[in-house]
């Protein structure tokens, strides 16, 4: 209990620290490029109170979550399959590398133009961009799997399904949580970028329009909304970690 408490205060301390630095900086600079945190949170409160915040948030969040789930499913399957089958690993090696190294901006551009501007396109795009990251993470973590334990499993003729659900997945929970963190932010970023570069709704679009008219205050208000949601997600991840990792 005590440790939980120190954990929360440490987490909050850094946020408070950032806001204080921000407040001081904005007071020193004093221009529209850096509005004070109070003004920004005021705008945010307006956005929320008037209910205008929810539609863009819902749009972005919905796309992010669906794309993320797709990516985790694909990535985990890929990671385990690649660790288990040499042929599969070799077949997908270059494809995966290509997926990893293709600039996201170019992918966004290509996808939006050739597949049309639908939620489906963005979800697919997120899945494709995030999958290799999750996939390599899982594949490499699987490479660290203890040989002694693999020997044990072979000795006991533990079947593939059992090995996956009983050994690999539990072993993978910590790396999956880490990959999940990275993957979620990446999904969120891809959704956001697609909105900025041509999908006209969601938080990304709001940020982009505020930016175009040099309204940094509104831009930051949207950004804060986004960050608050993220912090909630982070707490959910921690909860998941506490529930799943008991050993």
């Amino acid at each position, binding site marked *: 209990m005590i440790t939980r408490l120190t954990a929360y205060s440490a*987490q909050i301390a850094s946020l408070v620290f950032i806001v204080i630095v921000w407040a001081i900086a904005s007071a020193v600079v004093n221009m529209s*490029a850096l509005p004070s945190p109070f003004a920004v949170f005021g705008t945010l409160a307006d956005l929320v109170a008037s209910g205008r915040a929810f539609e863009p948030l819902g749009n972005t969040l919905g796309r992010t979550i669906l794309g993320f789930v797709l990516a985790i499913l694909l990535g985990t399957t890929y990671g385990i399959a690649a660790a288990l089958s040499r042929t599969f690993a*070799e077949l997908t090696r270059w494809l995966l590398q290509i997926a990893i190294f293709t600039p996201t901006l170019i992918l966004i551009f290509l996808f939006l133009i050739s597949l049309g501007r639908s939620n489906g396109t963005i979800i697919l795009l997120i899945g494709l961009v995030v999958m290799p990251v999750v996939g390599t993470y899982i594949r490499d973590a699987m490479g660290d799997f203890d040989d002694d334990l693999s020997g044990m499993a072979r000795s006991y003729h533990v079947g593939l399904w059992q090995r996956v659900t009983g050994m690999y997945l539990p072993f993978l929970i910590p790396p999956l949580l880490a990959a999940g963190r990275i993957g979620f932010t990446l999904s969120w970023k891809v959704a956001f970028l697609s909105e900025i570069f041509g999908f006209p709704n969601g938080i990304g679009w709001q940020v982009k329009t505020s930016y175009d008219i040099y309204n940094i205050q509104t831009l930051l208000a949207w*950004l804060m909304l986004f*960050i608050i949601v993220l912090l909630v997600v982070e707490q959910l991840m921690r909860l998941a970690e506490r529930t799943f990792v008991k050993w």
Partner: protein
Amino acid sequence: MTTMSRSHRLLLNAAPVVVGIGIWWALTTFVLVQPRLYPTPAAVVTEIVRIFSNEGPLGSTYVHAASTLMRLLVSWALAFVFGTLLGVLAGRKRVVFDFFANPVWIAMAVPSVVWVFIFLVLFGIDNIVPISALVMLLSAPVFLGTAEGVRATPPDLVEMCDSFHVGRWQRLVHFYLPSIAPYMVANARVSFALGIRIVLIAEVIGLPNGVGILVAYWSDTLYMAPIVAWGIILMAAGMAIDHLVFAPLQRRIRQESAD
């Protein structure tokens, strides 16, 4: 595990890629006939040749490429050092991790464009803008990966170190670093790939030079072929570095830590 012959492996590697290019060719030649938006493989190759012969808008292509590469390398190196050092600290002390968790999470989740938006209005047009945006974004996953690796070090070995009063430095160099070495190489790999992917976004928004400016130019005038060409060049550069530097490194580390 059975070993495969080199040629067999190459065949497996290349087959799906060749098939992919075939599909691309067929699509752009028969279905989506619009060379401006859906360039054919041949058109892209022509563009690649032009880029390599230093032809293109807005001055020397090589200068643009060099400045992009420099930004990428500098920010990647900075991010790697920061991320690893903080990550080791955070992996050992839960409080440190908790303190950094939210800022790291924020740094990582806010897209590069937005960082660039913000830094640009704060710092003006300067190299520091894309570099700090990249450092922000790249150090976050390195930090998390390292912390994860440190936390995954077996507690009985940590206890052994305590028992033998292994000092700070020795513990870092001989214990934590080797035991997280696989994580570190993975981090370096992942963050480098990430860097290659997002360096363009950081440049598109506002800099006097860099590949991002060229891509923005072509996207403003709606020509996809040079954009795809740049995409392929960056991808190839990333893959080459990955193949020549990181992969052998990772193999060596795996061998040394093999069980």
